[in-house]
């Protein structure tokens, strides 16, 4: 029986802005997911989920608010009555189109909203531009305020570039001053349509870790409840809290259905990867078959085998495996051309830095007589952070 923890649905691939680092190949495609695909989602996925399951359904992979509100009203009307009781709905948005009608939809459908805002205005506007090359920070923060004013507490995803790492205090001030308490940091990563990364060519691990330590220290000093998702997850795991495993390395734990009904799994971004050896990670179409059929597709079996080899290699060689679980297959493939490998730049700059930052932060707060943790000496030198 299928039981995905994460279901990514793509109402449309279209996006109304044009970020310089976007990985979406089809962001000019204005097609909407058809009613036939929605019906197939209902019959072949949602009706078949175990009643006790609690998947998160995310409208994503394009700008979801470029699909009409009416489209969602129809989709929710077809999915909500058959979805397991504990199903959660979420939307990842740039916020630009969010108005009262959207807020009413979110409220009525209990949909969580996460906004993509790359921190302070100068960093956000440098890369998150409209299709006419206009800045978008004011529009995004207006949506944030509108949502907050309506009682929502949107989380925020921030994509970092090297030029931001020297300015942790500016980023922290942005989150604090805008009442943002749930953030997730990603990086300008090499994948899909984004064929270069600004992090390539130099090792930014120490700088990234120092950035995160500074964020923690500032927030802690101010008693500001800044939850950095990656760090929170690692903190909980190291404290012994039971958490779900890495959904990107477990077949069908993350399920992606694209606008045309194409189905994929493992890393959701695989939908944007051109890889003929894996049938471009399209393992079937929901209009034509069932997940059980797709799990027998040769391309899926090959991907599954290589992802498993990568996990085994990570487990054998990486000190961070317990907080990572085997990394991100799409980043392995995009960076190394192979999913059976271990460490990527993405690992180093996201999971590893989050773990190092947490340990460094805790060591800093240990009583002087008890500083038996041995933080990275390079990081200690780099921590001229004003903290």
């Amino acid at each position, binding site marked *: 029986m299928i039981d995905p923890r994460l279901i990514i649905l793509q109402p449309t691939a279209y996006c109304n802005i044009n970020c310089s680092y976007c990985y979406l190949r089809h962001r000019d495609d204005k097609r909407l997911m058809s009613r036939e695909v929605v019906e197939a989602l209902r019959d072949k996925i949602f009706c078949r989920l175990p009643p006790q399951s609690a998947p998160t359904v*995310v409208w994503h992979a394009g700008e979801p608010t470029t699909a009409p509100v009416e489209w969602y009203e129809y989709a929710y009307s077809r999915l909500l009555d058959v979805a397991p009781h504990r199903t959660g709905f979420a939307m990842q948005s740039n916020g630009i189109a969010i108005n009262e009608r959207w807020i009413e939809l979110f409220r009525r459908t209990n949909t969580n909203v996460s906004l993509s805002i790359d921190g302070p205005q100068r960093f956000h506007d440098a890369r998150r531009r409209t299709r006419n090359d206009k800045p978008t920070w004011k529009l995004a923060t207006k949506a944030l305020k509108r949502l907050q004013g309506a009682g929502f*507490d949107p989380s925020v995803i921030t994509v970092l570039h090297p030029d931001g790492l020297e300015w942790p205090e500016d980023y922290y001030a942005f989150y604090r001053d805008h009442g943002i308490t749930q953030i997730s940091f990603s990086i300008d990563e090499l994948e899909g349509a984004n064929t270069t990364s600004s992090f390539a060519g130099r090792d930014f691990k120490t700088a990234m870790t120092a950035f995160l330590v500074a964020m*923690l220290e500032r*927030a802690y000093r*101010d*008693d500001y*409840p800044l939850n950095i998702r990656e760090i929170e997850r690692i903190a909980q795991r190291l404290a012994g809290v039971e958490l779900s495993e890495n*959904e990107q390395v477990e077949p069908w734990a993350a399920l992606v259905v694209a606008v045309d009904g194409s189905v994929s799994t493992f890393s959701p971004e695989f939908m944007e990867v051109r890889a003929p050896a894996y049938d471009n990670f399209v393992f079937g179409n929901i209009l034509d078959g069932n997940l059980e059929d797709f799990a027998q597709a040769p391309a899926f079996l090959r991907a599954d085998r290589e992802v498993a080899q990568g996990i085994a290699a990570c487990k054998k060689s990486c000190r961070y495996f317990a907080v990572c679980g085997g990394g991100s297959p799409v980043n392995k493939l995009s960076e190394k051309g192979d999913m059976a490998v271990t460490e990527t730049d993405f690992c180093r700059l996201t999971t590893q830095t989050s773990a190092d930052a947490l340990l460094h932060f805790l060591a800093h707060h240990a009583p002087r007589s008890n500083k038996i943790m*041995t933080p990275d000496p390079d990081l200690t030198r780099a921590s001229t952070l004003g903290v």
Partner: protein
Amino acid sequence: MSGPRVGPLPFAFLLALATEANSSPASLATDSKDNLQPGMLSGLLKLNGNPEFSIKSVDQLKNGETTTVVQYFPNFKNCVSGSWRNC
């Protein structure tokens, strides 16, 4: 740290508070070459049997006539607790 909290206490801060209160020499023992292990910091939250630092999922903070329920790890949905970063 002082002052009012306006949201769920980050778990990292809970660990830091426990670290500051720690008089036991074992809880933070690690080395930059050691493998990280699930539960390796669990000792921090069981210090001296102090319930303030024991793992708990919900706390109630009374402020006058109002009571705020703080969830330390709410019923995390995947976009909050999962590994995938793009939602």
